[in-house]
């Protein structure tokens, strides 16, 4: 889009002029989506906050009533909650580092021309489309299995002691599975970003005698800045709510080694039937997600204000 057209289309004046003349039903167009999100996300969220202050256990139906901060104090004194919080942060942090780092390296690789690049790229991004429950079961049984898994076979072939991945390195195993699924996503988006890099900029710095690293550091990375932000934002949303991979493999164990916040809340709601406590924990998960959102949504807002100046 050329800048002139963009500038025109972003002038709010123009919108109001149209609005006045014909009165396009902006509100009626917006209402269905807004109401739907209110009913399915915001109202339940408000109810979660209400439940968090209630004594409410499905196993003890007679003991209902206002609980004050009791659920929260139980929660804050529960070491499992804290370990779930730490596990969530470790999982999100490690998966972000691995997927973005590896995704960037692979994007640079697939940005070069080689024989069969299109097919190779298509194979490499396939894991992103695999159902997470399938990922969990295939890795748990056929790759991680201490005796019959491919990984143990590879270790034995190399003359090493096979590793019982899920028992001894449970969190690492979960991180490996999630990274396997999401590295292709980072790769795909970063590759598109690389391909939109203007050729003349690269040529200009090369003429100035910049080496590969300087070219990467001063041209490629700044150019990818926005795209990297998008990758981190979308991945954070999904990593914060990781559930299926854990459900299908470790069930949060051994012990609580891989219990993250979603799994902790799932357990307290569906196995302890404690609505109050699990609602309080859910508030914790929402607060954590909002801390991430606070930093990440700024990008989105900033991108809006920039108003397509590109």
């Amino acid at each position, binding site marked *: *889009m050329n800048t002139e057209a963009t500038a025109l*289309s972003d002038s*709010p004046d123009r*919108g109001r002029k*149209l609005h006045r003349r014909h009165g*396009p039903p902006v509100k009626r167009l917006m209402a269905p*989506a807004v109401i739907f*999100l209110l009913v*399915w*996300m*915001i109202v*339940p*969220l408000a*109810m979660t906050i209400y*439940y968090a202050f209630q004594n409410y256990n499905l196993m003890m139906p007679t003991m209902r009533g206002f609980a004050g901060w009791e659920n929260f104090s139980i929660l804050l004194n529960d070491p499992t909650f804290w370990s779930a919080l730490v596990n969530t942060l470790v999982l999100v942090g490690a998966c972000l580092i691995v997927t973005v780092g590896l995704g960037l390296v*692979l994007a640079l690789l697939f940005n*070069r021309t*080689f024989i069969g690049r299109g097919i190779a*790229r298509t194979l*490499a*991004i*396939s*894991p992103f*489309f*695999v*159902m*997470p*429950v399938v990922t969990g*079961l*295939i*890795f748990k*049984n*056929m*790759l991680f299995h201490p005796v*019959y898994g*491919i990984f143990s076979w590879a270790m034995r072939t190399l003359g090493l002691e096979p590793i019982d991945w899920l028992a001894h390195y449970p969190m690492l195993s979960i991180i490996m599975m999630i990274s*396997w699924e999401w*590295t292709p996503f980072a790769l795909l*988006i970063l590759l*598109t*970003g690389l391909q939109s890099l203007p050729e003349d900029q690269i040529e200009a710095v090369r003429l100035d005698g910049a080496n590969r690293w300087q070219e990467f550091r001063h041209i490629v990375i700044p150019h990818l800045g926005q*795209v990297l*932000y998008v990758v981190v934002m979308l991945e954070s949303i999904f990593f914060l*709510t990781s559930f299926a991979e854990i*459900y*299908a493999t470790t069930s949060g164990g051994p012990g609580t080694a891989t219990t993250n*916040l979603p799994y902790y*809340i*799932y357990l307290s*709601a569906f196995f302890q039937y404690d609505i109050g406590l699990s609602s309080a*924990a859910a508030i914790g*998960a929402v607060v954590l997600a*909002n801390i991430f*959102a606070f930093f990440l949504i700024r990008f*989105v807002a900033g*991108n*809006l*204000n920039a108003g*397509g100046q*590109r």
Partner: protein
Amino acid sequence: MEPKRSIGLAVVGWLVALIMFFPILWMILTAFKTEQTAFSMTPQFIFSPTLDSFRTALDQGAGYWHYALNSAITSVISTLIGLALAIPAAYAMAFFPSKRTDFTLVWMVSTKFIPAVGVLIPIFLVYKSLGLLDTDAGLIMLFAAMNLPIMVWMVYSYFKDIPRDIVEAADIDGAGTLQTMVQVILPLALPGLASTGLLALIFAWNEAFWSLTMVDHNAATLAPFIASFKSAEGLFWAKMSAASVLTVTPIIVLGWFAQRQMVRGLTFGAVK
């Protein structure tokens, strides 16, 4: 230009691709094995293929088709509902921006930051009292709500690429809002709308959290079907692989076709 380097590059590129694809390849190979060949300490790469595991996988539980049908119904209808809600909203915001547009868009993305567990309990209890537990309708609404923020954003960024003049021209010609949207704008944004729909379909098909908590038998989708293999031990790898192949293949193929168009909308316009 530099043939030697290019060959080295091709080797590295293909090696990476095969490593990434290996778990999927291994699952496909295992699906065509007998349980005895599948469960072997030395991986069998050469074997005589059999369809037996597919036959038993199709009969597993309530039968593969029960789950596949639920998956198809819930992901397709939730995607259509999502599009029906996202298109008008994105249209209004892209072509008739007001002071509140930025706020509304950011608010919509921020609802995506509410984790599913944050609304799990109220939704479970309300569903229970309304009889929506274990129904396709219940899952459809959840999938639509889950995908809506991203869908609005994607459609919005595609609409933003269409010059406003076109809407104004239609306006001057006396076309109504609905007419302009359906007859002028939607055809122009069709590739973008298709990739938005495909991504929503993929997310809904692969969804596990709601499908494992809100569903028992009637509305069970493929995610709980596959998860039912979790407790079994021992000689079931071929059957599990066959069921998995039946579950992931349609979506992987869809993803292969949609990969390019999907990305641009997902970057929210950061890549042109």
